[in-house]
């Protein structure tokens, strides 16, 4: 069965590109436009991996990450923070909140794909 990847980002053009990349790798892809929607889809759709933007309306990515990590039933969900906020402090914050990876925007598409694949296959 195809692995499920959820994209949470409020930038339409970015979701279009990332969705294209993920589908091309054969993943089952869904898109959420803000933090709240993302969180409810994580709960209902149970994705294997979430590509999570930080600066979003309603609920930011850090908050989503914190909530997911606080929920034991969602322990298997991999979280990749994907953000234009590239300062050291923010990378640290994301990782300390339990994100599995933190990829700054603009990212290299091949790197994004390989990080996602390796996380889904080996868990690292």
């Amino acid at each position, binding site marked *: 069965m195809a692995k499920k990847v959820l994209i949470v980002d409020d*930038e339409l053009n970015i979701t279009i590109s990332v969705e294209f990349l993920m589908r091309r790798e054969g993943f089952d892809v869904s898109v959420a436009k803000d933090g709240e929607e993302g969180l409810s889809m994580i709960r209902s759709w149970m994705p294997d991996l979430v590509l999570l933007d930080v600066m979003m309306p309603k609920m930011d990515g850090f908050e989503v990450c914190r909530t997911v990590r606080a929920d034991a039933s969602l322990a298997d969900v991999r979280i990749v923070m994907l953000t234009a906020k590239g300062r050291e402090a923010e990378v640290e914050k994301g990782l300390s909140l339990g994100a599995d990876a933190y990829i700054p925007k603009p990212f290299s598409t091949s790197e994004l794909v390989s990080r996602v694949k390796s996380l889904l296959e080996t868990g690292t």
Partner: protein
Amino acid sequence: MNEGIGHCPIDARLQHMLSEPLVITVSFLYLGLLFAIAYWADRRADSGRSVIANPTVYALSLAVYCTAWTYYGSVGRAAATGIGFLPIYLGPTLAATLWVFLLRKMVRISKSQRITSIADFVSSRYGKSHLLGGLVTIIAVVGVLPYIALQLKAISSSFSILIHYPEVMLPGSAITLPVWQDTAFYIALLLAAFTILFGTRHLDASERHEGMVAAIAFESIVKLMALTAVGLFTTFWLYDGFGDVVYHAQQAGHLKTRLIPEGSANTWFSFSLLSALAVVLLPRQFQVAVVENSGENQLRRAIWLFPLYLLLINLFVLPIALAGQLQFAGIGVDADTYVLTLPIAHQQQWLALFSYLGGLSAATGMVIVETIALSTMVCNDLVMPGLLRRWRYQAASMDISRTLLLIRRGAIFVVLMLGYSYFRLAGEAYALVAIGLISFTAVAQFAPVMIGGLYWRGGTRSGALAALSAGFLVWIYTLLLPSFAKSGWLARDFLDLGPFGITLLKPQALFGLEGLDEISHCLFWSLTFNIGAYLIVSSMRLPNADETTQATRFVDAMKHSRPIAASLWRGSAQVADLINLTARFLGEDRARESFTDYFSNERNLDDDAELPADAETVEFAETLLAGAIGSASARVMVASVVQEEPLGLDEVMDILDEASQIRAYSYELEKKSRELEAATAELKAANIKLLELDHLKDDFMSSVTHELRTPLTSIRAFSEILRDDPKIDLAERKRFLGIIVEETERLTRLVNQVLDLAKIESGHAVWTSSEVDLVEVIRHAIDTSGQLILDRGGKLHHRIAVESALVWADRDRLMQVMLNLLSNAAKFMAKEAGRVDIELRQEPALYRVMVQDNGAGIPREQQTIIFEKFRQGSTNSAHPMGTGLGLPISREIIEHFGGRLTVKSTPGKGAIFSFELPCATCGAANPSEKTGQEA
């Protein structure tokens, strides 16, 4: 020997229970106990755990005010005049409220000047004058001797009464006895010995007599308990409470006039005033209140505790007086003895004994403190000046400190013997209360020079001498001589008819003043002459150098923590000479110890006696000596070993001026330092603001980076997708390239706007201002972006109510604002049946432009945020492709031309953005005047 005046039924078994040896033994035991307490307190003081540092002990020691005169005399006075005894306690109670200012200042001065007595205080204030100190001493001794005599009389009478228990037998006239058979004589001797033991263990009188004070405080407790015991016995044992006593007295007819005070309001006023003054000015009161004070904060408790004590000790005076009158009606027992005779009459031997002890404690307490205070004054202000004159011609023996102790002990003995003599001569002339008031009136003469000297710089030595002499002479003439006449030692003629028959000079109706009691009469005339002489003589010349120096030290005492006046001395001296001098008075060890302390603690110097002494050291030596021999003598002694160059008044005034300049200067400094503090605070605030700005800039940069990265992300992602995968079908390829172009445009717009905003904010923007027609700008904007609205399926309406609307502005910038507002409206208007309304209005002195859409509106909490950078209004639909800088830039532009850009919105009903600009042709000030930022 004794005349039996009356007796009660005798119970034979009780006879001789209170035998003479028993009473004597108990008296000795009591005095022994006092001495033990004093010894214990002295020991504690030596080991640094002072008992008298306790404010309660201080307040109790002040109660030495209540002597045998209170203990026995109040009842006597109450029997005669009802509540006429009260002013004596009312005065001090009222005065206590002033102690915070008056007494505190006296204490502060006395500590810094090492004042040893009230004579020393007055002499020191008016330039350290021996003459003045001597005069105060003479007034005090003459004025207070009758008072001491009274205490001796009280002890001896109460002793005689007690040993006749269970008979109530009043002592006869002691004068008929030879001296060696007179109890009072032995009592005087005993008290002299006791006082010498108490009071002259150390020489330095400014060093506190801790033991004595502790013993006095104990005595205050004893006399209060004894009087209260008799009161309780009388009121609740003999009668059923206060009401019952009064009822019986009424029945017996003792009450008709008694409770209503006899005499006029004048009497009440003058008695209250007298006692208010006496409670501080009596030598013994000054001793305990000022000299023995060990900390200004003790006053705070004394202010209420001392009046409370007075209240308690007077509580039972009336019941005892009334009960005594009922008990001894018609028998002729002296009301002054009721406190003792009432228990005897009821065969309460132990209560009688206790009551006797209470009276003994009241009397001994007074005698001890009064004699110590007087002996210090006599020694320092009468004997020392004579000795100093003699030593000028003939070298003194090295052991002066021993000589001084001997003088002081001698003075104690002499004072008590004088008191006894007065008792022998005059003791029978007056009732107890009259004697006390005579003394009060004498010491009241100190009030003008004391209180005046604390607050008025103009008082001089001659003024003080004149004041005291005048007051004292009037006192002698109107009170002392008449009392002699009443005792039969002078012909009464001058009292009744006036000297040489001149009625205007009748001593107790001076200048025709009649209708006052003798005390009020004397108080009035003596204080009138006293104050008059003080003011008139003082104002006859300006204070000289010494007087000015001391006036400053006294009047400004509360202003300086250290006396400034050390600089008021010029001369040369050797430290070794000063140490040798003080050693002669204080003993080698104490002198050396004091100087070593002084040098190491106060001056941070190694002791070096070879140094020439500076003004401060000379001042220290003088103050140290003053503690032993009084300030005037200390001045003379120090002057004998230093070569003083006398300062003229001009120089003193100069130095004081300098001191006040220094004060002014330090005030300036303080002001400066406050200003500096304020400046620092401002700097801090500015710094915080800068940090905030820095933070904002940081945030701005961070936001800009974020906004730049977002389109870059899409551009890079699609570019890589297109590069890596040539097989993507054409439609998709076109779509992706479209996005890349769109994002590139967004990027360009963003870069332009960031630069634009930065320019505006930094003031580097170029404004091309001219009269601009808003109508034309709006029409042009509609032409440009109307299509955008139509493209999105919306409709555009406009309502322009004026022909033209001229404002002072930059046309292109205004256009930028209009386009921004219109594109926002197009972006946020309703998806279905979108509609945008533009309206131009003229209002008083301004034009208003409104752009309204019919979209979702802006929540209240976001209405201010949208004018901040990078804070776009959120929509539920796709992300609007704004930069988040349009509104902030628009607001900057409108405000630059003196207008305002605001938003009004009800969520769900769209938003109205409106800006106003001043009308250029409406006669208002040309707004371009304000825009100084134009580049």
